[in-house]
C-alpha cells in the first residue's frame, strides 16, 4: 500500500514541552510499582481491584455474584466496571493512555499482540506462584502467548461450528449428513438440495463470509496458516481465492444466501435472526452461543462440524480461548490481581453464577465439575468443544498485531466479490498485498 516507515526506532523517551508533559507526565512510574507489593502475600482488606468487562446488566449480575465469593475468601474487594462491547475498546484505550487502566480486564486473543508489543499488559509468567496453570490446556495457553511470554489466561474455550435447523431440513424430506466425514463438496451439494427442496424458500446456508476463524480453518485445511509464527501472511492468493469462489458457486445454486440477503444479523434477537425465520437453514457460530440460540429456537438446531476435515491436507480445527483475562502492567496491586485471575481460572466456585457462559473452563478438572451441572443445550456445546479439543490438531499460534486490520480487509474484499466488483481470484491477490502491508505496518 504505502511505505509508511515503521516507528520502532522512535518509541519511548520523550522530549520537553508542556504538551508532552500533559500526555506523558501523567503516566505513573510503570516499572517501580510492580515489585513493591510482591512480598506481602497476605491479602489486605483495603485493596480494591478494578475489573473491566463488557456485559449486559444480567451478565454483570452473575459476575458480581462470583466476585463476591472471591472477596469472601480473600478479603480483597473487586469493583466491576462493565459496559457494552461497542464502547469497550475506546474506553480501555483511553484509560491506558491516561495511565489509569483497570487491574484486570477482558481481552480478545487478536488484540493481545497490539497491547503486548507496547508493554501495557503484565507478563503473567512472573506470577506463576500465584496463578496455577498446571491443569490448563497447553494449546489454549499457546494462544495467549506472545513472543514466548504469557499475557492472558483463557476465560474458557470454544470453537466454531455450523448449526443446522434439523427440523426444517428433515421436514423437507432430507437427511442430515454425517458431519465427521463430510467434504466441502458434500456441504455444497447438501445446501443446494435444501434450496431446491424448499422451492427456493430457504437458502442452504448463509454466514459471515469474511469471519477470520472460518478462513483460518480453511487455510489450515489447505496445509497453510493464515499467519506465520513470525507474524507474516502464511497463506496464498489461490487459497483465499478458492474460498471466495466456493461461496460464489454456492450462491449460484441457492446453497448460499443470495446477494444482499445477509445483513448484519448480530443486532437482531435470536428468534428474529435469518436462521430463526427460516430464511437460511444453517449458519456458522461460535459454539458457545449454541445454548442460547437453540433454546430461543425451541431445540430445532443441531451442532455440526465444519466440513473438509477429512479430505484436506491436514486438520483445520482449532479450539480457542473465548476471551482472555489480562492484567495491566501498571496495576498497583499486581499480586492481588493475579490472585483474582487464579480464582477465576481454578476455583470451581468462581463459576457458580456464570457457569460456562465464557466457554468451557480452561482448567480441565474444573471443567468436569462445572459441566456436571449444566443444561442439555450447554452440555452439547461442552461435549462438542471437548471432543474437538481431544483430537490431534496442528498447533495454532496467537494472532499477530495487525490481525484486526486483516479482518477489516477481508470484510471489504468479501463485499467486493459479493457485488461482482472483483473476481474471487482478484480478491485473493488483493488480500495478499493488503494483508502483508497491514501486518508490516502493525509489526
Amino acid at each position, binding site marked *: 500500500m504505502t511505505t509508511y516507515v515503521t*516507528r520502532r526506532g522512535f*518509541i519511548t523517551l520523550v522530549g520537553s514541552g508542556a504538551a508532552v508533559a500533559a500526555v*506523558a507526565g501523567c503516566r505513573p512510574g510503570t516499572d517501580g510499582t510492580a515489585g513493591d507489593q510482591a512480598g506481602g502475600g497476605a491479602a489486605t482488606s483495603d485493596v480494591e481491584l478494578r475489573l473491566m468487562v463488557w456485559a449486559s446488566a444480567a451478565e454483570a449480575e452473575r459476575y458480581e455474584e462470583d466476585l463476591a465469593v472471591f472477596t469472601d475468601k480473600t478479603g480483597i474487594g473487586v469493583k466491576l466496571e462493565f459496559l457494552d462491547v461497542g464502547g469497550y475498546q475506546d474506553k480501555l484505550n483511553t484509560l491506558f493512555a491516561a495511565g489509569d487502566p483497570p487491574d484486570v480486564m477482558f481481552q480478545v486473543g487478536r488484540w493481545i499482540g497490539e497491547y503486548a508489543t507496547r508493554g501495557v499488559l503484565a507478563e503473567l509468567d512472573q506470577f506463576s506462584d500465584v496463578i496455577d496453570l498446571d491443569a490448563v490446556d497447553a494449546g489454549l495457553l499457546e494462544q495467549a502467548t506472545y513472543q514466548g511470554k504469557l499475557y492472558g489466561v483463557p476465560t474458557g474455550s470454544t470453537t466454531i461450528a455450523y448449526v443446522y435447523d434439523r427440523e426444517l431440513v428433515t421436514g423437507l424430506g432430507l437427511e442430515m449428513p454425517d458431519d465427521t466425514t463430510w467434504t466441502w463438496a458434500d456441504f455444497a451439494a447438501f445446501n443446494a438440495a435444501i434450496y431446491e427442496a424448499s422451492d427456493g424458500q430457504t437458502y442452504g446456508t448463509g454466514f459471515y463470509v469474511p469471519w477470520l476463524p472460518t478462513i483460518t480453518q480453511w487455510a489450515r485445511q489447505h496445509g497453510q496458516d493464515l499467519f506465520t509464527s513470525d507474524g507474516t501472511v502464511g497463506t496464498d492468493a489461490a487459497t483465499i481465492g478458492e474460498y471466495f469462489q466456493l461461496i460464489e458457486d454456492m450462491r449460484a445454486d441457492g446453497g448460499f444466501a443470495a446477494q444482499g440477503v445477509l445483513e448484519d444479523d448480530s*443486532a437482531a434477537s435470536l428468534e428474529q435472526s435469518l436462521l430463526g425465520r427460516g430464511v437460511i437453514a444453517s449458519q456458522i457460530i461460535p459454539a458457545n452461543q449454541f445454548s442460547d440460540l437453540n433454546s430461543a429456537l425451541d431445540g430445532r438446531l443441531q451442532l455440526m462440524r465444519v466440513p473438509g476435515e477429512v479430505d484436506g491436507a491436514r486438520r483445520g480445527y482449532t479450539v480457542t480461548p473465548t476471551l482472555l483475562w489480562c492484567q495491566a502492567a501498571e496495576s498497583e496491586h499486581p499480586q492481588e490481581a493475579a490472585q483474582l485471575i487464579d480464582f477465576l481460572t481454578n476455583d470451581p466456585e468462581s463459576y457458580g453464577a456464570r457457569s460456562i457462559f465464557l466457554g468451557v473452563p480452561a482448567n480441565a478438572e474444573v471443567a468436569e465439575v462445572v459441566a456436571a451441572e449444566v443444561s442439555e443445550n450447554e452440555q452439547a456445546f461442552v461435549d462438542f468443544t471437548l471432543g474437538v479439543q481431544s483430537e490431534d490438531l496442528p498447533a495454532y499460534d496467537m494472532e499477530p498485531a495487525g490481525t484486526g486490520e486483516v479482518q477489516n480487509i477481508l470484510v471489504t474484499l468479501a463485499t467486493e466479490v459479493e457485488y461482482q466488483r472483483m473476481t474471487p481470484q482478484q480478491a485473493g491477490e488483493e488480500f495478499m498485498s493488503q494483508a502483508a502491508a497491514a501486518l508490516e505496518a*502493525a509489526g
Partner: protein
Amino acid sequence: MSSTTAERGVSSPRRRKGADAGDRVAYVLLIPWAIGMLFTLIPFGVSLYLAFTDYDLLTSPAWVGLENFAHFANDPKAATAAKVTLVYTFVAVPISLAVALGIALLLNRGVRGLPFYRSAFYLPSLIGASVAIVMLWRSIFGHAGVVNRFLAFFGIDGPGWTTDPDWALMTLVTLSVWGFGASMVIFLAGLRQIPRMYYEAASVDGATPARQFFSITMPLLSPVLFFNLVLGLIGSLQTFTQAYVFSGGTGGPADSTLFFNLYLYQQGFQRFDMGYASALAWIMFVVIAIFTAVNFLVSKYWVFYDD
C-alpha cells in the same frame, strides 16, 4: 490572557468615540469564556503536537516531524475517505437546507395544528443514535424492510440499501435529510423574530408576497440561513456518529461510507496510530476552516446584519 487584553481595551481609541463607552466590560463578561477556552486549547495544543509524533496511545509519543503528513499524501484510503465525505456534504447539505427552509416557511404561514406538525417533523432529531435507532433503520432499509416491500408493490426489486456499496451512501444522505428538523426549528425561530410590523408597513406600501419575501424575509433571515449553512457544512464534513452506527464502525460496505472522521477514529483507536489520526484531524481542521472562511467572505455579499 483576559487581563492583558483588558488593559489594552481601556485605552482603546474606540472608547473615546463615545458610542461604545463602557464596552470594556466585555472583558469581565468574557472571563468564563476565557477559562473555557483554556480547557479547550490545552487538548488542542496537545493534539497538534501529537500530529508530529508517532503516538500509539499506550507508550509515550515520539517526534517524527512531517512523517504523518507524508503518509497522508500516499494513503489511498484517506483519499477514499475524503471523497466519500465531500460527495456526501455536497449532496446532503443543500437538500437538507432546502427542505428545512421550505417546511419552515410553510409552517410559518399559520397552519392549524402547527405545534403537532412541528413536533412530528422534529421527532427524528430527538431520538439520537441509540441501539433502538439501528434496529429501526434495519426495519426500514433492510433487505426485506419497509422501503423494499413498498417497491415490491410496483414490481421493483429494491437494492440492498445498506449492503450494496453503490447505494449505502445515498441511504445515509436520506437519513440526514430525514433529520432536517433541527435546522427547521432554527429557521422557524428566525422567522418568528422578524418583526411583524415590517410586513405591515410593506403591505401598506402595496408590496406583493414575493416582494415581501425577497426584501424582508430573506434579508432578515439571512443571518440564520448563513448559520445553518455554516453549521450544516461543518457538521456534514465531520459526520461520524451516523456513519459509525450505520456500518458498525467499519465504513463498509466496501469503504463506501468511510467518512474522513470515521477513518481517523479507526486509525487512532483501532490501529493505535493516534499520531496519524491527529495529523488527519488537523488536515481536516484546515480544510473545514477554509470552507468556513470562504463562507464568511462570501456572506458579506448576501447576509444582512442590522449594524
